[in-house]
């Protein structure tokens, strides 16, 4: 016995049409220049924060490095 026959829903033309429409609209949204600019800006700000933290971390070791290696 098949407890749940998803095939009957997934094979329906209306369901497949919905899938296509959803895929097309999501792809269009992802490729919208404004969305790409926003995504790139968010990534960039995150990376700049990351680099600033890394630099601060590196600088915080400077006295210890200088003590360990007087050269």
């Amino acid at each position, binding site marked *: 016995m098949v407890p749940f026959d998803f095939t009957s829903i*997934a094979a329906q033309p209306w369901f497949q049409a919905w899938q296509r429409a959803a*895929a097309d609209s999501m*792809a269009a949204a*992802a*490729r919208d220049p404004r969305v790409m600019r926003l995504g790139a800006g968010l990534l960039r700000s995150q990376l700049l924060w990351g*680099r600033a933290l890394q630099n601060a971390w*590196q600088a915080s*070791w400077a006295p210890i490095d200088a003590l360990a290696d007087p050269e």
Partner: protein
Amino acid sequence: MQTHNEWRTLGLQLADTMDTLVAHGARTRLHAQAAFARLLHGKGPIDFVTGPATPYRVLEDWPLARLLNFPSAKPGAGKPLLIVASLINRYYVMDLLPELSVIALLNRRGFDVYVLDWKSPGPDGPDLGFADYVDGVIPTAAKLVAARHAAGLPAVIGYCMGGTLSVMFAARHADKLRALILLGTPVEFRLSGELYNLTDRRRFDADLLMDVLGNMPPFMMQSGFKLLNPFDAVNKLVSLVRDAGDGERVRHFVALESWLDDNVAFPGGVYREYIRALYQDDLLCKRTMRIAGTPVDLGKLVAPLLNVIALRDHICAPPASRALMPLVGSKEKEAMEFDTGHIGLTTSRRSLAELWPRIADWMEQRW
């Protein structure tokens, strides 16, 4: 002592370990999803699908790659063939399942197959460059393979980014290969489609990314590929649940998706070069590409060339591959176009039945 650098090394090593764990986790998750989908159809779970399907011997274990050998079905008579996979992917997309294996097919056709299985770059990644691969690992492997065979120089198959590396290798080391076969290989990157738009220099700063991350982790690479088709994850789940009654389809699904989640990090130094020189400046097709200070002249690529182009390739759009043909110096060159997608070149049943016998025929004529 540079203690902060040791922390960075430790971080990059940890990232590699995490990537391995993520790959194993993904394989387990996919089996669980498949088992649930099968349950909805009143069927039991499939047998566990492991990674590579064909047994192999490890000939060399270098820091950047392992050289694997899949011996021909006709011992001693094998024609050597070296496969260069994309730097970020595991090679076994060409060996997913016993019944769906390009490598097994090539073995049956009498080729002794050698594969460069890339390893995670770890703390060395940020200092690596194209030279380490194009003038280092690939020619060393080709020389080693040639030395093992009376049949002489190997033919080289490059897939995706592995194809781009192979093009540069063939242009710089023309005496180390018999023929070059490219699969879904971008050369004129401005024609490669959405990935080109994603890496547009006005928005995308590869140097900043690598300054922070060291190497490009697989999850970041994956997010870029997922942006090409953001609804794909839902479509795949719907297909899985709908088709779960067919055990063979489920095995194929789990094998392919597990491979997609099994990646190695992109070495940071190579990533900088790849994005800047190829995606953003398109230097290869402008004939101004340089590696370690010396030019990569595509006119010096004189080996017989077979350029296999997937007509529905969304990672390397067909024009990006076709652009290679007029640039090379090869007298024998052929572009073979096939109606499939980027991964379908090696994983679809139709490609195995119709495309690969033609590729094998072309290669046999080169000996």
